[in-house]
């Protein structure tokens, strides 16, 4: 299988990403509870644009959404004629690993198995696309590798996966959002509080993470978010 070289596309007026060491593990901490009426803001997303561009003119696809069911995503995706599978994976993570040390619990094989069965128990090659948003950055190894491997298996060949990773390595906690699709190029981000990431990623470590996939493309944006579009 031909594997494209990764490319980083820097948006105007952004500082270059830092090739700092990856794998600096964070200890678990309870996330800051989100505000009842969380502030939200919209942003353009080149990754989202690429994702929906890849499935343009196709209908009756099965898409996976990790942000949790919301009216915007349900309406947008089903109005395109697709079937949506929705799950609030961050909620599932907290439910499975949230008692005690959040990251240390992710090394417990029983909890890991429970999480995978509850969250990613799908047949191989079942989905035509996956919107995993910022979820992966809160997974510590080996759970992270198992989840990425499971995503690879449940996606059909040529399917795309969209993931976001926070790029500011100095931040001890990062904002967590619920991602609402406004249109194929625009997202509305509803704040869900802050929590520490499991680790920070640079382009090289992301390429290693998605080594099974055919290609990995990056978009680094001015709000410290690295958008990654991955092709199965």
């Amino acid at each position, binding site marked *: 299988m031909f594997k494209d070289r990764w490319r980083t596309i820097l948006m105007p007026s952004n500082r270059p990403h830092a090739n700092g060491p990856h794998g600096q593990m964070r200890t678990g901490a309870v996330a800051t509870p989100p505000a009842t009426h969380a502030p939200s803001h919209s942003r353009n997303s080149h990754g989202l644009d690429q994702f929906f561009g890849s499935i343009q003119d196709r209908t009756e696809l099965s898409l996976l959404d990790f942000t*949790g*069911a*919301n009216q915007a995503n*349900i309406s*947008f995706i*089903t109005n395109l004629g697709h079937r949506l*599978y*929705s*799950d609030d994976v961050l909620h599932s993570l907290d439910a499975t690993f949230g008692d005690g040390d959040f990251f240390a619990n992710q090394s417990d094989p029983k909890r890991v198995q429970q999480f995978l069965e509850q969250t990613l128990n799908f047949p191989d090659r079942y989905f035509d696309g996956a919107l995993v948003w910022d979820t992966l950055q809160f997974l510590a190894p080996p759970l992270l590798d198992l989840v990425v491997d499971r995503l690879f298996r449940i996606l059909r060949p040529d399917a795309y996966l969209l993931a976001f990773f926070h790029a500011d390595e100095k931040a001890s906690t990062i904002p967590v959002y619920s991602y609402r699709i406004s249109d194929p190029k625009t997202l509305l981000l509803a704040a869900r509080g802050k929590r520490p990431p499991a680790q920070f990623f640079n382009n090289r470590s992301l390429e290693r993470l998605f080594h099974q996939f055919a290609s990995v493309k990056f978009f680094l944006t001015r709000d410290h978010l690295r958008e990654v579009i991955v092709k199965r």
Partner: protein
Amino acid sequence: MSAMPGRMNETHGDSLRGSATLGKSVMVKGQIISREDLTIDGEVEGTVELQEHRLTVGPNGKVQASVKAREIVVLGTVQGNVEATDKIDIRKDAKLVGDIKTVRIVIEDGAYFKGSIDISKPEVSKPAAPRPQTASTPAALNAQPPLAAGAGAGDKR
């Protein structure tokens, strides 16, 4: 409220209002078929079927069943596959785990849903068949069938 084993029909008292209710202290295991609107505030395990009516799962309601109705409003908890020929409404603080098949869906912020969503096109009633011509009926060269009645198109956002 009394119930035949495995089967529940509409109550006499509520039928006057056209709506039946299972109260908070009621638990039903089995098959529920209703020919009127139904509100569930108790616990139900099995299947619930209201072909042409509305099912409301109240804030205290816990339904572990496959559900079919014209319209389904969830304020409590539903675990099971849900099918509505018109609309599903999942309110804030509600929880629904299962696969959904419906024409329209509304989900409020704060609701929890996990499962798949299949939006089906509304059923359109077939147009009436044209009258067969008789010797006394003049031929209509450009006759058109009567307009079909819509079954409630989904909201397009």
